């Protein structure tokens, strides 16, 4: 049986054909009525946008009893408690929005129950991955997460039997949100897409989070596009960029500028979809109206940007990512085995990640031009010629804090 294309990926493909950037909020409310109002507002914002249902932290960590208790006692959560509220309530969110693409965003290392309810509610797109939703967002062992994600990806792939092709996005390009060198981000994103494809998922997207250098970020997005083209033959795929995920400017003007920079980066690299932040980001969970303004600003900025320039030639980002992808795949016949093995051996090691299964030997810093550079590549197989480094000194708190607040120092006005 030929499955219908995912509503989500069909929408992105149509806008790729028209060369318009698809924009998406990071929206999640615990109250179904607020969530429904948010989705309607996005659908009616007059811009090419897909909807988002972001789940709350209790649902993300499988504590559905706590989520249900909070709902019953009226305590606001930081997202939509999809499992506690169940498929009927979830389906009701989009009942009057036929054909409107919605992605469920969750952050779970073990998402089987989330996917089951999501599918029952008729939603066909989600995101995450065995590494990207385990190491930063849980203390679940990586092998446990890899097995859970195997079952979860297979569950989505199996929907093809009833005529639905689900879409799954890798969150691998966003590890810890900031201060992860692009070569590792690109490799993780592509590896997770390959993991999804290995389980039969036929529509995927590879993510990358805006970092601190527009030139380096552009190289990363081109490197990711090239690697996806080389590795994902026969799998529908697109790229998604996230507006900076780290310490966000506190001023409205600074926040708007950083969002605009992410839009320009997306358009000039031909990136199909952008997850947009709002001006409230540094302070609290944004309102529906703040989300809509951000989407409209992003769309207007995208329209004013010229068509994409061509890809650069060979770059260090591509060379690092290519090497890491090849090394990891050579470890085992499947990525379900190879990904945890790679972290055990320190072949993959995310800087500053405190998860027990991460090596924790690697560090990185910003250079004078704002480019992310390795400070220490630990046991990762990166030779000096490809940017590998084994620095002796530790990175000081002052340097780390300065690097973490790079955009804030650059874009927030100095108060006198």
């Amino acid at each position, binding site marked *: 049986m030929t499955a219908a294309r995912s509503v989500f990926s069909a929408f992105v493909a149509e806008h790729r054909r028209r060369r318009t950037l698809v924009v998406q909020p990071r929206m999640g409310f615990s109250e179904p009525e607020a969530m429904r109002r948010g989705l309607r507002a996005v659908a009616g914002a007059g811009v090419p946008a897909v909807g988002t249902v972001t789940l709350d932290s209790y649902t993300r960590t499988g504590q559905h009893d706590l989520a249900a208790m909070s709902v019953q006692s009226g305590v606001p959560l*930081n997202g939509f408690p999809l499992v506690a509220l169940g498929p009927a309530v979830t389906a009701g969110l989009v009942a009057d929005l036929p054909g409107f693409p919605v992605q469920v965003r969750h952050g779970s290392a073990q998402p089987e129950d989330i996917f089951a309810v999501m599918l029952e509610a008729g939603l066909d797109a989600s995101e995450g991955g065995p590494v990207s939703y385990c190491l930063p967002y849980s203390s679940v062992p990586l092998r446990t997460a890899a097995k859970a994600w195997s079952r979860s990806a297979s569950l989505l792939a199996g929907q093809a039997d009833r005529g639905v092709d689900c879409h799954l996005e890798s969150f691998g390009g966003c590890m810890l949100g900031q201060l992860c060198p692009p070569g590792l981000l690109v490799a993780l994103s592509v590896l997770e897409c390959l993991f999804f494809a290995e389980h039969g998922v036929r529509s995927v997207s590879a993510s990358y989070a805006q970092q601190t250098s527009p030139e380096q970020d552009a190289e990363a997005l081109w490197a990711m596009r090239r690697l996806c083209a080389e590795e994902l033959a026969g799998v529908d795929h697109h790229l998604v960029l996230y507006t900076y995920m780290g310490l966000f400017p506190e001023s409205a003007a600074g926040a708007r500028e950083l969002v605009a920079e992410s839009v320009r980066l997306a358009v000039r690299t031909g990136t199909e979809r952008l997850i947009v932040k709002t001006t409230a980001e540094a302070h609290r969970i944004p309102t529906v109206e703040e989300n809509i303004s951000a989407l409209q600003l992003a769309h207007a900025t995208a329209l004013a940007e010229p068509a994409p320039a061509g890809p650069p030639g060979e770059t260090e980002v591509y060379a690092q990512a290519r090497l890491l992808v090849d090394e990891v795949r050579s470890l085992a016949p499947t990525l379900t085995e190879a990904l945890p093995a790679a972290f055990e051996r320190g072949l993959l090691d995310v800087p500053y990640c*405190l998860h*027990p299964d991460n090596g924790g030997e690697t560090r990185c810093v910003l250079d004078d031009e704002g480019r992310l550079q390795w400070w220490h590549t630990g046991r990762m197989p990166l030779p000096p010629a490809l940017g590998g480094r084994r620095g002796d000194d530790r990175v000081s708190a002052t340097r780390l804090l300065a690097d*973490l607040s790079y955009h804030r120092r650059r874009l927030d006005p100095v108060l006198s």
Partner: protein
Amino acid sequence: MTTFQIEQTPDRPAVSAGPPLKFVLSSVESDSHMWNLVALQLIMEEMGHEVVNLGACVPVGRLLAACHDERPDCLVISTINGHGHVDGARVISALRSDAVLAGLPAVIGGKLGVHGDANSALEAELLALGYDAVFHVGAGDSGQAIESFREFVAANIRTLR
């Protein structure tokens, strides 16, 4: 989900005001934010103290077990996902009803509710449940919480030890 909210004045002398202390540093079970923990560990180490960093998403049981094993001078909870007043309350209630850990100094800091402004009711509630100090990070004053924490450690260094 990965923003963090700690800043300090750069170039501030990172000198310990007394003997080194041992801290267990952790987030709460539902909170995946990590940069606040990474930065706090470095700041505390540069203050001259030892830090056992348990990381993000730590279940209450594991947190208590680590405190039993490590016997720290103080437990520091840092959380910014907005569920901190609920999860942080569960942590301190479990700690205060544990025969061995009932007297362990414990502090909590970060963004404790989902609304941006500092909320003195949440703060009072957490103090009443048994925290020794609460460092609530409101909109735009993230640097203040870390300063208050430094002052707390300096002022209580003898009693903590």
